């Protein structure tokens, strides 16, 4: 079976499956275009509701209020999706760093040195701004991820020796903190994700900051394309023992 599918992949000038998918996509697009022009918008959504309950959410920005408070459950699951993506990538391969150290040009190094701290600062600002204007964990995390990508592209030597455990803790800190705060509601006898009224503003900011760190690390790890080099060391002991036993 495996051999068969491999062969199939080598010579594939025409594949009925691809044609089916193509037709399906074209059909969908046509339908969508038609629908978009013919179906009237009959509702204005929930904007009024959001505005009404805004003061009770603990933040001034309606987007943040929806993301973290009114529909915080969606966001909690979305943060988990990002994490699963990293676990999935780590399960496939090690991060493909080149064998030899590459000499980075001084211009690039200078740019990275200048930009990376600045980007961290911008990320922190965006997270803070999330409480009253546009911004928040995902935006801040994206900038942080960008900073990580910049470092990775410059191929700084210390990146390849990053240990797995601190990286995992960094990846998990946002999801775990979010989950912990969510459970706080249950412990207080209310629903999951109910924030204690007085503290909700600062708790939301904390959630956003930790999640921004995790999201930034997630994006950078996805760019690195694999798990850290020392990720398997903890368990390699057993096979070595087995091999010795076999020799005996």
């Amino acid at each position, binding site marked *: 079976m495996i051999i068969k599918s491999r062969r199939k992949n080598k010579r594939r000038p025409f594949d009925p499956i691809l044609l089916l998918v193509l037709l399906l996509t074209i059909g969908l697009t046509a339908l969508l275009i038609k629908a978009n022009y013919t179906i009237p918008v009959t*509702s204005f959504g929930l904007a009024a509701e959001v505005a009404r309950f805004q003061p009770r959410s603990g933040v001034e920005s309606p987007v943040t209020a929806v993301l973290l408070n009114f529909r915080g459950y969606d966001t909690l699951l979305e943060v988990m999706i990002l994490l*699963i993506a990293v676990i999935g990538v780590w399960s496939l391969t090690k991060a493909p760093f080149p064998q030899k150290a590459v000499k980075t040009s001084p211009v690039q190094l200078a740019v990275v040195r200048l930009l990376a701290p600045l980007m961290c600062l911008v990320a922190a600002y965006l997270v803070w701004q999330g409480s009253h204007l546009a911004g928040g964990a995902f935006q801040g995390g994206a900038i942080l991820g960008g900073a990580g990508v910049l470092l990775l592209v410059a191929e700084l030597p210390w990146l390849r020796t990053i240990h797995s455990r601190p990286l995992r803790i960094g990846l*998990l800190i946002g999801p775990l903190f979010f989950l912990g705060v969510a459970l706080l509601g249950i412990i207080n006898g209310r629903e999951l994700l109910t924030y204690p009224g007085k503290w909700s503003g600062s708790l939301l900011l904390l959630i956003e900051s930790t999640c921004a760190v995790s999201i930034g690390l997630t994006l950078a790890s996805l760019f690195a394309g694999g798990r850290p080099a020392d990720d398997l060391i903890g368990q390699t002991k057993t096979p070595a023992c087995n091999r010795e036993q076999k020799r005996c």
Partner: protein
Amino acid sequence: MTIFNSSAWIVAPIIIPLIGGLLCFLWRRDTFFIALFISLANLLSVTTLLRQFLLFGPLRYRMGGWEAPLGIALRLHGPALLMLLMTAVSGIGITLYARGYFSFRISALKHNNRHEQQERFFWPLWLMLWTALNALFLSGDIFNLYVTLELVSVSAAALAALSGKPASQIAAFRYLLVSLLGSLSYLLGVVFVYKTYGILDLEMLRQIATPGPGLQMALTLMTLGLLLKTALFPLHFWLPPAHANALAPVSAILSGLVVKGSFFILFTLWFEIFASSITANALDLIGLLGAGAVIWGSLQAIRQQRLKLLVTYSTVAQLGYLFIAFPLTATENISQEVWTAVTFMVMAHSFAKTAMFMAAGTIFLQVGHDRIRDLAGIRKSLPITSFAYAIAGVNLIGLPPSGGFIGKWLLLTAALTSGQWHWSLVIIAGSLLASVYVFRVVSRLFLTPDEAIIQECRPHSPLQEWPALFLAIIALLLGLIAPYFSLILETTEIVANLAPGGGL
């Protein structure tokens, strides 16, 4: 003061595996015991929910304390509860089997590093997938359903790629793309729902949904996406390579549980939320595709030379039955029976298929191949596994007293009482074909040829064999406890009748 609100049990099936998944990724050591503990805790929480459900009827939970149009609601109704129960029981079986499977492969001294790495990443991904499925069954919000669908597809695709073989990686990548296409199509449908009604809560949508161009468009898009994810013929093309090339416990998860998730959403949307807008033509079309799936999938299964591919194609065929049920709901007074039938088919197929993939995986590990031609006499070295395979096969054929029998019987009755006898022909033909592809393997397993070849008997742990038998027997005995399930489903009905426009 700490007051534990008893309605909080409803989030336990989501939170417990989620915590487990995060911990498994963080700790890495003794992850199996974390997973085992989590699966037992999950079963406990689901049984508690069952007790609450029988006492108080369907539950509704406001996430974050916000009322429905603004916040997200979880809801627990009969079908969702049964799905949770099914996932909890299958999940325990899969967790135990996966332990046996990986420890056997690690002890085999071949690429052992690779197998350890596979096991290490299997646990967090599996627990996350479990979270996603439970969240999907409990969700009461049409957009939140999309988020759970994404959670399911990302973790399922990662699991499918875990074996590391090029064939499985290609298949998993295709699976990911198809899944994303399906999710996006569903999301576009949600956009149209929001454009038309301005709310996302399922219960509220059920009350205000009226047939119109917006809803029609939304339903078309959502149905298409979900059919793609459920692999209804002819959109099943991605399923055989993805399921057959994955590791055995992963195949069991994908075939037994994951496809049921998108089917559950589809069924809820068609027959509960938007039931008023469904036309008879659409039902007939879906039924026709289901019939195509039964016949085509069975024929393909009969043709296969490899055990795992055979089991995979039988999934395509068995999924067809679920869709044949669609046109049978057209007659008002029997729709409850069809609901029961479909729930039974889903549960029976889930248990049986999980068991079958486990058995196929054990046979593959033990013999080193899964060419059906050369499997003669495996019963001698793997009696329990062969027995489990045979019992699971009984379920797929639909012999009494299995859950599959009850499901098919209810479908047949519905087809005859509603005067749509042509569907009953397909159901019977499918059963006959199923018996061909089941007995093709079972006869090999149990008949020892005269020139008996002594199989190389490698040591294996009981965890590799017993979970499959356990699940197969549950599937077999489902028929005997059928009245209890009907009771759970009827609890839904009472409440649905009280609510305006109940489509159940």
